[in-house]
């Protein structure tokens, strides 16, 4: 019993080490560099930026596949080691590049636990065997060799994600044989440092419990048996037939549209670092940080918070750039001297944290060092200290499958500075969850302005309702309407009303219809013929309602029939052709063009002219106004058209709204005036404060 415990202890320790071990990042990078250093093609590819890919946890756990990803307990670790599978795959999953979707690329590289533990005072014996490895001392260092006759194979399991974003049961889709019959493995240590410098000195094997690549190449499997657009989670398992060790499940991967740029060199492209930065406990964290050999400073003060004023699903991560950030403004001359190769990019890792414990840290994105365009823009007034990254992949409110209680997933973030090869880690952020805001504060000033104007309009309407007097100036065009109707009656010729050619989703048309209602009433009283050809069926529908009501109100329901308001065609010039025809044949005495007009305005007005009709026009289409002004007797310019609907509307209280609009104009005038003054001062006196004030003022109106 005692002995068992004694035996368990180192294994347990080993497990913990594996667990808390950070430098797998280097491990894999290095492993990959190992490849590159031998393969020029890859070397070239290595120069290109690493495509971001989702990573499986590389830590093997023995449990049934469906278990949700959580940190293995020490007991589990023990059992793992007991399971004694020395292999673990480092896997990356990506949409199979350059295809039409419907395929997922799964790549893994097998690693195994190191033969040597240089923990504490422990050292490698000069010769003999060690953990089943035959050690020999060479002139250039130690050699470790061993043979492995086991038939290792990797199982690939897949589960489709339900709508709730949680995976269904994992099913095995492929088993790949990986371990050859006899497998020779050879590593070398440096005499003095006991560091491994072969297969690759990039491997900074100067920390204990190291792992290195078993068969140093990527094995691939393309899973072409997936539906387009559907999301899947994968997990791999290593087995020798009897024992099996599972990895955690991958992040969901969706086929189809690639999420990152497709590089031709992808297949040979560099693997992103196999990152499994699981700080089981803070102490372990500081522990492995201290062991980091990256030659540059890490980012600091990493904070994560909900991205403000959005509809959820996004978290804002901020951090102070590494002191070795390539940006000259951040990097001091001293640092330039000490650290010649600067930090070129930051990689952002995310771990979902459930009840306190963080899951796997998974690479979700990267941000290039230095200041980007926006940051430079923002530096006009203040020097940017923090860099930020918005993770819009954060989960929204979801339901726990077991307990059924709702929760917003919390994430803890870790930002690492990278020079392209190595990572140096910052402290992970405190967990944050993405929430949906109830108010968008970017639009605050807009909201205020909108509120003031609306309030003014309503208030003045009430003001008039309360029987108070308001001066509202006359609008010539409107005075003329009744006269025009009268003229038509005298001449015994019809009246033509054109509500423009836009649909009911244009306010001009709506006010035109409103005006039509009022005019129709007068016309019904005069008992004159009214013609309203429309270009949109909805306008026809509405027009009929309105005119019918007007005739009822005028006590002439008998005079109304549906042929007053007719539909010609949606096509602009088909409509014009039709109206032209009506004009020349029916020879209306009065033409009213009120609403949204385009090119047809001139044709209509001209034809109206040629038949000598009185014409009153009104539109908010500035490009058409000159022609109406030229060819019509009266023209309502822009806002006057909307004013008209108030003037003519059935309840006079609406005149109050005009006063409300004037308040709006007043706001505009004041704003423009003060803005102009501010701008002038800011420009003449090149004081930053003034510029800040002006920028703020400008922002009030432009940040919408």
């Amino acid at each position, binding site marked *: 019993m005692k002995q068992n415990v004694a035996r368990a202890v180192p294994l347990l320790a080993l497990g913990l080490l594996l667990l808390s071990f950070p430098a797998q990042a280097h491990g894999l990078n290095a492993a990959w560099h190992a490849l590159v250093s031998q393969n020029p093609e890859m070397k070239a590819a290595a120069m290109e930026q690493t495509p971001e890919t989702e990573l499986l946890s590389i830590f093997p756990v023995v449990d049934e596949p469906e278990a949700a990803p959580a940190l293995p307990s020490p007991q589990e670790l023990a059992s793992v080691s007991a399971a004694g599978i020395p292999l673990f795959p480092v896997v990356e999953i990506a949409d199979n590049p*350059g295809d039409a979707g419907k395929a997922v690329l799964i790549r893994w590289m097998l690693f195994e636990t190191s033969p040597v533990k240089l923990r504490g005072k422990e050292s490698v014996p000069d010769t003999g065997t060690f953990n089943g490895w035959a050690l020999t001392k060479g002139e250039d260092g130690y050699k470790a060799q061993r043979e492995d006759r086991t038939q290792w194979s990797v199982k690939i399991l897949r589960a489709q994600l339900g709508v709730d974003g949680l995976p269904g049961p994992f099913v095995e889709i492929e088993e790949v044989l990986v371990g050859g019959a006899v497998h020779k493995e050879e590593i070398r240590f440096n005499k003095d440092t006991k560091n491994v410098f072969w297969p690759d000195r990039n491997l900074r094997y100067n920390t204990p419990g190291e792992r290195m690549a078993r068969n140093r190449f990527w094995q691939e499997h393309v899973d072409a048996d997936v539906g387009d657009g559907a999301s899947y989670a994968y997990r791999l398992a290593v087995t020798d037939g009897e024992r099996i060790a599972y990895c955690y499940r991958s992040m969901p991967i969706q086929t*189809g549209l*690639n999420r990152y*740029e*497709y590089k031709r060199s992808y297949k040979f492209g560099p693997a992103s670092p196999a990152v499994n930065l699981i700080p089981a406990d803070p102490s372990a964290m500081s522990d492995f940080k201290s062991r980091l050999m990256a030659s540059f400073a890490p980012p600091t003060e990493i904070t994560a918070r909900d991205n403000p004023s959005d509809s959820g699903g996004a978290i804002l991560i901020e951090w102070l750039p590494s002191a070795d950030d390539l940006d000259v403004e951040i990097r001091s001359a001293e640092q330039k001297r000490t650290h010649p190769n600067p930090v070129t990019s930051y990689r952002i890792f995310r771990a979902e944290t459930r009840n306190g414990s963080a899951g796997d840290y998974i690479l979700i994105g990267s941000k290039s060092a230095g200041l980007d365009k926006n940051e430079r823009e923002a530096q006009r007034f203040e020097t940017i200290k923090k860099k930020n990254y918005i993770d819009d992949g954060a989960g929204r409110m979801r339901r726990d499958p077991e307990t059924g209680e709702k929760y917003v997933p919390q994430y803890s973030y870790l930002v690492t500075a990278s020079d392209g090869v190595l990572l140096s880690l910052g402290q992970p952020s405190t967990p944050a969850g993405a929430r949906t805001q109830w108010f968008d504060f970017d639009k605050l000033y807009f909201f205020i302005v909108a509120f003031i104007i609306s309030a003014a309009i309503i208030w003045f309407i009430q003001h008039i309702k309360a029987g108070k007097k308001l001066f509202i100036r006359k609008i010539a065009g409107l005075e003329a309407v009744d006269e025009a109707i009268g003229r038509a009656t005298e001449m015994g010729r019809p009246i033509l009303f054109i509500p423009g050619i836009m649909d009911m989703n244009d306010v001009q048309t709506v006010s035109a219809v409103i005006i039509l209602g009022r005019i129709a009433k007068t016309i019904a009283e005069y008992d004159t013929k009214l013609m309203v050809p429309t270009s949109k069926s909805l306008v026809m529908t509405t027009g009929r309602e309105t005119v019918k009501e007007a005739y009822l109100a005028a006590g002439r329901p008998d005079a109304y029939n549906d042929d007053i308001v007719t539909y010609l065609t949606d096509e602009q*010039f088909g409509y014009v052709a039709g109206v032209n025809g009506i004009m020349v044949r029916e020879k209306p005495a009065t033409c009213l063009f009120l609403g949204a007009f385009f*090119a047809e305005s001139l044709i209509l007005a001209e034809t109206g002219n040629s038949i000598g009709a009185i014409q009153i026009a009104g539109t908010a289409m500035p490009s058409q106004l000159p022609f109406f002004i030229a*060819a*019509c007797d009266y023209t309502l310019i822009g806002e006057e058209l909307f004013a008209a609907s108030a003037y003519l509307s059935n309840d006079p209280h609406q005149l109050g709204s005009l006063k409300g609009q004037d308040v709006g104009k007043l706001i505009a005038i004041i704003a423009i005036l003060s803005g102009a003054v501010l701008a002038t001062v800011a420009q003449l006196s090149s004081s930053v404060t003034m510029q800040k004030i002006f920028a703020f003022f400008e922002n009030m109106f432009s940040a919408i």
Partner: protein
Amino acid sequence: MADTPETTKKTGWYQKVRDIDRRIIFLFIALAVIIPLLLQPSFPEFPAQLVKDTFAEMDKLPEGSKILMAFDYDPASEPELQPMATVWTRHAFENKLKIYIVALWPLGQNMAEDTLNELLKEYPDRKYGVDYVNLGFKSGGQGVINVILTDFAKMYPTDVYNKPLSQIPIMKDVKSIKDMDLIINISAGFPGLKEWVQFGADPAGVRIIGGSTAVQAPLLYPYIPNQLHGLLGGLKAAAEYEELADRKLCGMKCGQDAECIDSCIKEYAKRDKGKVRMGAQAIAHMVIMAFIIIGNITFFIDRRRERKG
């Protein structure tokens, strides 16, 4: 304002001129347009600053940049806008930009196809789905823009050939308008450039240039330069843009050789619809101005006579 037949009494030559039959004016205009068309005189073009800016906006894009081209016009305004569409598409093909075509006008889709068919003759190696894609027309005006501002696939499940977007290589790394490097809109009214500026480029923070009919142009100046980064207003601007484009191409072809450039530009000028049409345009302008002058002369004489008694 407008004097109608009833209100005018016929005495004296100037009144005859004043009340001249519209058809005679029509005849003059017809001739002013037809004759230059037949003789095809070529007039010089002097690109305005705004056109130069527009050209630069497009020309500075690196190879492989994504541009969204919105064809929001129909045959009715084809004469004015087609030259822009053509010269822009050519410019894009020339600079190896990726073109994404949408249309808010039903017929815009056809205009786009016509344009492409024409230019694929010049650039036969451009592949559909790789160098350009035609998403076609969707009704809904700014509604469409609102939607594709966040997600193309939501509004455009497929392209015009009913291919799901996910199967089109060029769409692979494109989700919404925000992924574009430049928006080009060629519009003849509503929905058009104004809507693209308000609901597309502004919220998406993408630079936008546009071509509009001369009629629309004045309405769009208020958006320059903060919201709208380039504008071709009418045929004139199109012709000037053609001039710039030709100069660039010829520059690359001939280097410094002056008369080579001249001949080259003359060569290209033949295919430039805009330049050809500007000839007739200029003459017609003069005729119209002449009419305005005559009209006012008669008007003043008339008024003096009336004052006398």
